[in-house]
C-alpha cells in the first residue's frame, strides 16, 4: 500500500505507520504469542498426564528425585528414587505444573510487551521497505 507513494511522502508516512500500526500491533501479537504458548504448554502437560501416564509419572518422580537428591551422596541415588516411588505410587493431576507455567507466563508478560513495542515497528518497517524495493525494481527504477 505504501510502496506506491511518491518518494517525498514515503519516508514520513512509513515512520508514522510504524508508530501507529507497528507499536500496538507488536504489543497485541506478543500478548497473543504468550497466550498461545501458555495454552500449548498446558495442553502438553495435560495430554502427557492423560494419554501417557507412565511417561508423565516418570517425569514427576524425576522432578521430585532431583530436588531430594541435592546434598546427598550419589550412592543413595537409586535408593532415594525407589523410596520416592514407594511414597508416591501414582501421579495426581499436574496442577502444580500448570500453575507454575501460568505464573511464569505472567512473569514474562511485561518483558514480552516491551519487546513487542520495539520489534513491532521494526517488523513493519522492514516489510514495507521490502515491498517498496520490489515495487521499484518491477518498474525498473533504482532501489
Amino acid at each position, binding site marked *: 500500500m505504501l510502496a506506491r507513494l511518491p518518494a517525498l511522502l514515503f519516508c514520513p508516512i512509513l515512520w508514522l505507520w510504524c508508530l501507529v500500526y507497528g507499536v500496538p500491533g507488536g504489543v497485541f501479537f506478543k500478548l497473543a504469542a504468550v497466550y498461545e504458548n501458555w495454552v500449548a504448554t498446558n495442553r502438553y502437560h495435560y*495430554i502427557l498426564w492423560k494419554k501417557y501416564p507412565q511417561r508423565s509419572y516418570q517425569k514427576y518422580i524425576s522432578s521430585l528425585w532431583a530436588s531430594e537428591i541435592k546434598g546427598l551422596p550419589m550412592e543413595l541415588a537409586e535408593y532415594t528414587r525407589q523410596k520416592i516411588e514407594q511414597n508416591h505410587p501414582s501421579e495426581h493431576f499436574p496442577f502444580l505444573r500448570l500453575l507454575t507455567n501460568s505464573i511464569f507466563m505472567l512473569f514474562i508478560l511485561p518483558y514480552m510487551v516491551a519487546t513487542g513495542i520495539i520489534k513491532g515497528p521494526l517488523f513493519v518497517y522492514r516489510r514495507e521497505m521490502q515491498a517498496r524495493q520490489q515495487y521499484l525494481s518491477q518498474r525498473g527504477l533504482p532501489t
Partner: protein
Amino acid sequence: MNWFADNRKKPKILLVEDNELQAELTASAIVESGLYEVLIAHNGEEALNELARNQRGFDFLTNAIDCILLDWQMPKMDGTQLLRALRTHELKSPFKRHTPVVIISAFGDNDLRLKAEDSSHGLASAYLTKPIDESELLHVLKRITYDNEAEIMRELLLEQRLKQLKERR
C-alpha cells in the same frame, strides 16, 4: 450434524516433494480425507517462501501451517538444509516452538534412514517411508494436528533413537 466439527478451520499441511506425481498422489490422499488443506512446494526454497507467506501476527505467533511433510532428498535445497533453516529461524522466537515436521524418505529400515534421523537432530515428529501407507500417513497427521501430540511424538522418537544407539555400542 456436528456444527462445530464442520466449521472448524482445516489444518494446513505443507507438502514438500520434488517428484510431481508423488506429490499429487500424496496430496490427493490427504485432501480426500476432507480433514486438511494441502499446500505443495517442490523444493526447500519454495517451502520457505510458502512458510513466509503463511506467517501469523508479525511472525510473532506460530506459523499458520500446522505440519510439514518433508521429502528428505530434493534438488536445490534438501530436507536437512530446509529443516536447519527452519529451526534456526524458529530459535529467534523467545518460545522456540517448532512447526511439526514429518520426514518422508525412500530409505527403509537401514543405515541411510538412521543417518537421516540423526541429521535431523531429533527435530522431526515422525518418519514415514516410501511408498507411503495412506492410513499411516493420516494417523500421523491426526495425532499431530488434531490431538496436539507433535512434541510428545518428537520426544519419544528421540528417546527411541538414543536407545538404539546405546544398544549398538
